[in-house]
């Protein structure tokens, strides 16, 4: 039972919070909760809503600071690759989310939540290449450090 809660209950509860937070952003600021877009628009030219972006990102980072005190495993990047591979991953994520206009939150939660075909397509695409990448790294190359 405990296992079931940890494996499926927590993800579901966390997901509900994500849905609520995205809805709160829509209700108060009328915006899509796309973390890549909110964060990128903070330092790239030509984006409005700077104050909203700044406060949202600060809230996000502050929640991490607060949570790291009593849920250290959730913050310690367990299972992440070494610095070099993590850097390459970050580069791809940064470039790809700008080119594809969104990440897991913008397309996967908000986009699918408003039944956008564009976002559903994007989500299926990044899930597919994510799975393919893990397959190649784990089962073809035998892991990367």
């Amino acid at each position, binding site marked *: 039972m405990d296992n079931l809660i940890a494996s499926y209950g927590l993800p579901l509860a966390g997901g509900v919070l*994500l849905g609520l*937070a995205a809805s709160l952003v829509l209700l108060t600021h009328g915006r899509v909760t796309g973390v890549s877009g909110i964060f990128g628009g903070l330092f790239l030219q030509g984006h409005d809503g700077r104050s909203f972006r700044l406060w949202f990102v600060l809230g996000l980072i*502050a*929640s991490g600071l607060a949570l790291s005190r009593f849920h250290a495993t959730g913050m310690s990047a367990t*299972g992440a690759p070494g610095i070099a*591979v993590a850097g390459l*991953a970050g580069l791809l994520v940064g470039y790809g989310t700008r080119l594809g206009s969104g990440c897991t*939150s913008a397309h996967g939660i908000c986009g699918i939540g408003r039944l956008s075909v564009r976002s559903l397509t994007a989500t299926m695409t990044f899930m597919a290449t994510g799975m393919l990448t893990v397959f190649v*790294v784990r089962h073809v190359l035998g892991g990367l450090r």
Partner: protein
Amino acid sequence: MKPALAAAGAGALFGVGLCLSGMTQPAKVLGFLDVFGHWDPGLMFVMMGAVLVHLVLYRIIRRRNQPLFDSKFHVPESRGVDRKLLLGAAVFGAGWGLGGFCPGPALVSLAGGASSTGAFVGAMVVGMALHHVVHSAKRLEQPAEGPRTAVG
């Protein structure tokens, strides 16, 4: 004051949701993406919970003429699927599968102080800036093209 508080509160709530759901743990994310190995379906429930809640609340909220602290909604009008969307999503997915982080969880995890997280976020900023530079250069090269419209 109120708009800032709402934005920070939503950001914090989003961060708690990411942490609780397991999205901040690359081991879990990679386990979810490892469909050809020991697949861990747990994170499917994250999207299920989030989408179901937002599906209902989105419709209710959009009945309003405007959001509480803005004069209009900034929700993108549905456009067709284009090459940029597919290519961008594909590149993002490759990075997600390589690092086990997507942007939100990486920012939340900064507090953990792991060097991998720092490297990921730093490189993510570089990747975003790189796209910005390449994209701006392309626009300068083709001034006659006019506003970009998606091809369905």
